[in-house]
């Protein structure tokens, strides 16, 4: 599964707007993840996960920054996320099912903040993009 030219154009163009709210979007995505899917908190026993926590904000920023890298290198997401792919495979070992949950929460956050831009076509492009990112991050799992 790979992104068409049109899908890439949609993602790159929307990222312009998204990146202006990158940090709050990252934090909100994680808040949604932990509230809707409490089992995902098991990966963060070492974190203070209360709303507004500095750790939550820092981690949210990290996640969105990585997505930004993928967008900037949308023609070679595998290359852009190679190190993160190894990190997830050998160190973090987050169960693959959780990538769908995080992707969903990101889409909810983006839909809520950019309703006019989040057309059905944009929705499809983002869902596919997150699916590609998730595949790259789980590529080396076994």
């Amino acid at each position: 599964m790979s992104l068409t030219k049109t899908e890439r154009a949609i993602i790159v163009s929307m990222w312009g707007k998204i990146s202006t709210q990158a940090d709050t979007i990252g934090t909100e995505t994680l808040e949604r993840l932990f509230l809707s899917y409490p089992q995902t908190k098991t990966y963060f026993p070492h974190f203070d996960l209360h709303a507004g926590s500095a750790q939550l904000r820092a981690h949210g920023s990290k996640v969105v920054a990585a997505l930004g890298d993928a967008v900037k290198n949308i023609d070679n997401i595998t290359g852009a996320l190679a190190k993160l792919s190894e990190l997830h495979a050998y160190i973090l070992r987050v169960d693959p099912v959780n990538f769908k949950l995080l992707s969903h929460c990101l889409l909810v956050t983006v839909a809520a903040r950019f309703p006019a831009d989040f057309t059905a076509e944009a929705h499809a492009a983002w869902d596919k993009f997150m699916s590609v990112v998730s595949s790259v991050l789980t590529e080396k799992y076994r």
Partner: protein
Amino acid sequence: MVHFTAEEKAIITSLWGKVNVEEDGGEALGRLLVVYPWTQRFFDTFGNLSSASAIMGNPKVKAHGKKVLSSLGEAIKNMDDLKGTFSHLSELHCDRLHVDPENFRLLGNVLVIVLAKHFGKEFTPQIQAACQKMVAGVATALAHKYH
């Protein structure tokens, strides 16, 4: 069996009061067919599904979306017995429609996204969590009579 707290029931009931069943139903079903094109396999008789705009504007999609969301509205009045409420529909989806229950989960999540788009900031993480529980409960109830 899924159990809703009083707070969750209040959140869902209040949100539902502001949902436009006709518009949001058509939007949700349309997006399911656009974002996950393989789901079109169930709708051969629906006519033109050849592009995102064709799908979103298709009157049969809108009508069916409204039907689906109305049914969800009925369930919201019976949150303590989703399995009972959806018993007949579960049999129908298994025996006559032959729908893989995974599709209920997909549609549930698309609906959550449509609600987020509709309500914006108002669709807080807390509200989303209650909705996720609701759509998960409905999906499970619809799959309950499968054999």
